[in-house]
């Protein structure tokens, strides 16, 4: 389990390394070749030649997402340019029983976009138009391949921005964000993708195009949108998203605070949240993560810090001043030895550069590493960080911590050298033990990276069979054939029984003239 990131010179393990529990997710190459060929014919009839890929060498370009440990060559790749094309491909998949996997920019960290060897990979990167920024409505209407940061770029001139900001925001797509319910540093105050996606046009796994939600809130009926967001591509493919854009704050203050230990930094975090101040972000990095960031981007973090907090306060100036005073005092009371306030955009960018580049920077101090993603109650931070340190020292596996402290969303980076025999296994063990720590503290096995293929086997540690069965009732409603990203999220698929079709009889209320059928 968990994503292994090698540096560019370290080729990731290939298909043979996929653990047994994951093979159900990948399919067998050559299965239902006739069905795949039929889907290919449909796609070629609708799309330019460059939009349909079946050459084996080109297919390999798509063999993994950001979780490069798992690789599967898809049977076919299509790059539709319109909803109609995408829906036609999905309909063909449904007709021929061919599984499909959606992919945006391929930056996901849980293998959610890992292709199927017997299936079609549907890539949304050619659906990259920002249809509208509707200032009066505080909304933007986007195609799924739109890059996250481009939404903010398009809205800034109107005084607005798109709040969810995963570290990969320069390349990750809105469609991928929607599928994964992506978070980011600023979701402490502003919420996750699910809080910002108000509508979507969805191509269902049967190829129907439906509108869920929209410009107005509280659409009548079940909140299917709320269930689709974060369903990791298992309930269909969003072909447009209507998102909230947020007014730029009057003032932003970014602080970098140095502490001697993660205990002190964690206690300061709890004290700040407990005081009633809600910063836009509170991020923590420990000494090893700081070392890596310094090596990579020379962010000039405080010398000798055992931990730093990056704290951002935003809002009306009069409130920010007060919050700043509180935060400064609480940091000092909890042992901070240096507090820097970014005086301009350049300094602010440098502070954030250290944080946002931290995952990649770890490549400077370790040839290989696993990015873990778990959540604990914020008050358990000091205890869990000590337990992780104990795990690290007893196993000899180094662990760097970079994470969203305000949310309790940990991102331990487990370092190893795959060239050393047994090192990968030892790292996997530590990574798994960290997840167990999260579960035993009442937390979650993923806060923002998703379950994907990576953590499906962990789902039974957090949920009962009945819980998982109930979730899959939704799956059966949307995808009775089980062709949308099969093998992801759930460790075992639920048999949906009879494929539900149209009602056999008119609804009694309709018959009685009491309700309309729509």
């Amino acid at each position, binding site marked *: 389990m968990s994503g292994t990131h090698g540096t560019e010179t370290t080729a990731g393990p290939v298909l043979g390394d996929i653990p047994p529990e994951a093979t159900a997710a990948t399919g067998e190459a050559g299965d239902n070749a006739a069905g795949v060929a039929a889907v290919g014919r449909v796609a070629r009839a609708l799309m330019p030649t460059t939009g349909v890929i079946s050459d084996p060498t080109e297919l390999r370009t798509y063999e993994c997402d950001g979780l490069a440990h798992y690789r599967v060559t898809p049977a076919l790749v299509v790059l539709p340019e319109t909803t109609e094309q995408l829906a036609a491909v999905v309909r063909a998949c449904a007709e021929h029983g061919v599984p499909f996997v959606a992919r945006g920019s391929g930056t996901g960290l849980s293998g959610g976009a890992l292709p199927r060897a017997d299936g079609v990979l549907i890539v949304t990167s050619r659906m990259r138009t920002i249809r509208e920024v509707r200032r009066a409505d505080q909304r933007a209407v986007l195609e799924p391949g739109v890059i996250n940061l481009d939404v903010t770029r398009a809205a800034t001139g109107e005084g607005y921005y798109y709040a969810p900001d995963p570290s990969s925001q320069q390349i990750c797509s809105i469609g991928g964000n929607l599928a*994964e319910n992506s978070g980011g540093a600023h979701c402490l105050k502003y919420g996750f993708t699910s809080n910002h996606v108000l509508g979507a046009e969805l191509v269902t796994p049967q190829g129907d195009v*439906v509108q869920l939600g929209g410009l107005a809130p509280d659409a009548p009926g079940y909140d299917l949108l709320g269930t689709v967001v974060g369903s990791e591509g298992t309930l269909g493919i969003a072909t447009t998203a209507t998102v909230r854009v947020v007014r730029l704050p009057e003032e932003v203050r970014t602080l970098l605070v140095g502490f001697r230990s993660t205990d002190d930094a964690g206690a300061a975090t709890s004290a700040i949240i407990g005081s009633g101040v809600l910063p836009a972000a509170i991020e923590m990095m420990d000494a090893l993560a700081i070392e890596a960031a310094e090596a990579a981007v020379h962010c000039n973090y405080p010398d000798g810090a055992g931990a730093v907090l990056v704290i951002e306060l935003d809002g009306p100036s009069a*409130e920010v001043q007060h919050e700043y005073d509180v935060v400064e005092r609480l940091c000092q009371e909890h042992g901070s030895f240096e507090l820097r306030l970014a005086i301009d955009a350049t300094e602010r960018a440098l502070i954030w550069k250290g944080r946002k580049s931290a995952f990649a920077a770890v490549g400077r101090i370790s040839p290989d590493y696993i990015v873990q993603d778990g959540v604990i109650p914020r008050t358990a931070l000091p205890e869990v960080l000590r337990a992780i340190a104990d795990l690290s020292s007893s196993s000899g596996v180094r662990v760097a911590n970079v994470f969203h402290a305000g949310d309790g969303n940990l991102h331990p980076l487990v370092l190893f050298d795959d060239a050393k025999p047994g090192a990968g296994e030892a790292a996997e063990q530590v990574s798994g033990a960290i997840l167990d720590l999260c579960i035993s503290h009442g937390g979650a096995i*993923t806060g923002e990276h998703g379950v994907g293929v990576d953590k499906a086997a962990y789902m039974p540690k957090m949920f009962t069979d009945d819980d998982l069965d*109930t*979730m899959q*009732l939704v799956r059966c409603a949307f995808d009775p054939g089980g062709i949308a990203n099969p093998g992801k999220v759930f460790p075992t698929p639920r048999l949906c029984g009879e494929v539900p079709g149209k009602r056999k009889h008119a609804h009694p209320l309709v018959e009685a003239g009491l309700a309309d059928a729509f």
Partner: protein
Amino acid sequence: MTTVSLDAARTALSSACGDVTDAGPADAVDGVPATLVARPGSTAETAAVLQAAAGHGLTVVPRGRGTKLSWGRPPERADLVLDTSRMSAVLDHAAGDLIVHTQAGTLLADVQATVGSAGQRLSLDEAVPGSSIGGALATNTSGPGRLVVGTARDLLLGVTLVRADGVIAKAGGRVVKNVAGYDLGKLVIGSFGTLAVITDAVFRLHPLPAAERFVTVPFGTAEDAAALVQTMVHAQVVPAAVEVEWRVDGAGTVGVLLGGTPTGVEARTAATLQLLGAGAEAAETPPPGWGVLPWRDDADLPEVGLKLTCALSGLAPVLDTARRAAADVGVPLTLRGSGGAGVLYGALAADAPVDAVAAVVERTRTACTAHGGSLVVLEAPAAVQAAVDTWGPVPAIDLMRRVKEQFDPERRLAPGRFVGGI
């Protein structure tokens, strides 16, 4: 039910749950008489009750405190009312983590009292006084505070459900950030008891603001109201609420809530007064009717209660159309709601002619729909309910029916109350 099957059902229910009684007139659901009432004391008892109900083919209408049972359409049958009011404990308030875990039958007000003692709140306004947590979730009520903190879907972290077949299922968890598995909590919010019975819930909390100030300004026309709302939502003073009220007598008010630190609120209030211009006034207390649904809740003859939504850019035409539609048929209309969030509630007199109400509903719904929104008739006398389309057009209704068929294939949970006869 025949006497024999009723006796058998009562016996089965009684062995599942110690508190089973015959229903009285007060237990009727929107005019539909109920037969039995079960009051389970726990999730396990709820599961046992639902299993027994399944075994005897009983339709089940979940009930919290019964304050919104007349919303939506009446159920086709109500063999059993499953009353959650005995499950009324706040299970855990983890103040340091800003979360609360509560049973579903707990009064929203009791949750607020518990978390309020630590200077926190569940940022879910009590739109209908006396609501339980489960009832507020099932009907997705909200109030002025939705502008910034959102609605139940933005606050609910975890949920325990009991399915129609008696299976207990959890989704989400106890931490503020969690993307493991499907978010079933969002699915049951606003589902009117048609998918499952909610037995407990975990919410994120917010700190209570140290200071609050209300700024109001009168308006005369729909365009004026919309312009004032636009001014506020694009300002950088971060209003916690932007409300619009348009009374029967034509008096209109835009109300703005500012919450934060005393010094911050003072500065932001000054900025807001300037933004809203002549006639704006600040007060320490909310204006009359703040956060209260505009219709009178009378069990015998309820007023007509409408919920209107639209894109913010559609606020002026929606306000204008509603007002004109009511005036044209000579029916007084009160409008009130979270204009800054694109949500309004309308009240029409209980004795308004059915045809007139239908005309107002139809014209206003057309305007709402044209601006990306909808109109739902939440509350209405039986004659009106029979004459109007309660829920209006619902995109993706086929998919919703399929979800219902998966969760409740026998259509025993609140059948007929929800969209499209679900």
